[in-house]
């Protein structure tokens, strides 16, 4: 526990020290949303709810892939060797996942805010949409952290990251879009328990698998 706390603190401090990465991520989201705004809102001023929703999740997915890719590559090989001698692999993966989840939560909430301001707000059941956002952030963070760990060992990290993570994340994305669509339509909670529980189950599976497999990854 102590170890995980220390590692998370280290991640946050590292991120804070190089603010350009964080700011870059925010700017990335803002500019993508702005492109959508110019092309949908200014040109035709009609956007179907389904397009609104899918567009938002695609923007989030891409910014998640971009921001999590660097979670293993930003530190040099020497430093990683140093951590290897200090901390247990389980501690490292858990702390990285928690940190990335926090990062994703911040990014997705801010992105959501900007998106609503620019593209209008057709959502009728906002609490449920927020729950969906949180579940999505956790799911993206866990899956992508593990994939980033795998991809960082190869040379062409960013290409590999995209092709490895998209098929894996697709089931989750389908569930998320379905759930958020019913939140937009203002359906009650009781209609969506199935989706929520499946999302929770997928998150749990991915989390436990990462916990089990990471030690093998870390050794190389």
């Amino acid at each position, binding site marked *: 526990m102590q170890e995980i706390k220390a590692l998370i603190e280290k991640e946050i401090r590292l991120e804070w020290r190089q603010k350009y990465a964080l700011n870059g991520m925010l700017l990335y989201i803002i500019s993508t949303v702005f492109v959508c705004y110019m092309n949908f809102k200014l040109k035709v001023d009609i956007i179907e709810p389904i397009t609104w929703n899918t567009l938002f999740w695609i923007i989030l997915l891409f910014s998640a892939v971009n921001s999590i890719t660097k979670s293993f590559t930003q530190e040099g090989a020497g430093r990683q060797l140093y951590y290897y001698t200090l901390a247990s692999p389980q501690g490292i993966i858990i702390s990285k996942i928690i940190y990335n989840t926090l990062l994703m939560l911040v990014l997705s909430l801010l992105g959501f805010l900007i998106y609503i301001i620019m593209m209008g707000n057709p959502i009728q059941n906002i609490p449920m949409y927020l729950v969906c956002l949180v579940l999505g952030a956790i799911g993206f963070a866990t*899956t992508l952290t*593990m*994939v980033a760990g*795998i991809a960082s*060992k*190869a*040379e*062409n990290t960013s290409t*590999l990251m995209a*092709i*490895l993570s*998209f*098929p*894996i*994340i*697709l*089931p*989750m994305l*389908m*569930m998320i879009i379905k759930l958020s669509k019913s939140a937009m339509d203002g359906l009650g909670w009781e209609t969506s328990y*199935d989706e929520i529980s*499946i999302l929770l*189950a*997928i998150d749990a*599976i*991915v989390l436990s*698998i*990462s916990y089990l*497999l990471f030690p*093998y*990854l870390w*050794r*190389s």
Partner: protein
Amino acid sequence: MVLLFYTVVQGVAGTIPRQPVLNETLRNVYFHVPLWFGMMTLMAASVWFGIRYLRGGNIKDDEYSSEFANTAILYGALGFLTGAIWGNYTWGTPIPKDPKIIAVEVGLLIYSAYFVLRSSFDDEQKRGRLSAVYNIFAFAAFMPLVWILPRMTDSLHPGNGGNPAFGKYDMDNRVRMVFYPAIIGWTLLGIWLTSLRIRLRAIKRLKMEQE
């Protein structure tokens, strides 16, 4: 022992799937459905050898794992093809909107990515370790897609979304007599194909070492 294995597989896979029973599209049940069963078995085998490689570090297990994945891709593509032929006659279009079809497309994507990942490493040990990790991870993420999602949404496939399963109506005992052996036969054929490729690789490796 190897010879025995070889003849048994050849006998089962060679004759039984070709037995003509019904002169209709149901005939496809001997090809399409067992191919899926075979693919699932091969994927499971691939993951199993992946786990064994991680635990033992024997490079042979990694070869087994990758070859099983290879054959699983072949079976997936074949299953997709036979399904498209079947769908063309029964549902009107080769690729209708159906969760299972989406699932298999994703599955093929995953395993293609697996081979891209493999080809990007030179070091044998590293390649084995990382691809085994990805294999297990992808398998765990893929299974909910195949087993849970189709049962939640409406599907054209029998047994999902309110459609009756095969067993109730159109499977009489005569069909079953062929259907079950066909599953075993196709699965064993897949394993046999894989074992051939594994042996080929082993021979190549030995040759490399001798030179």
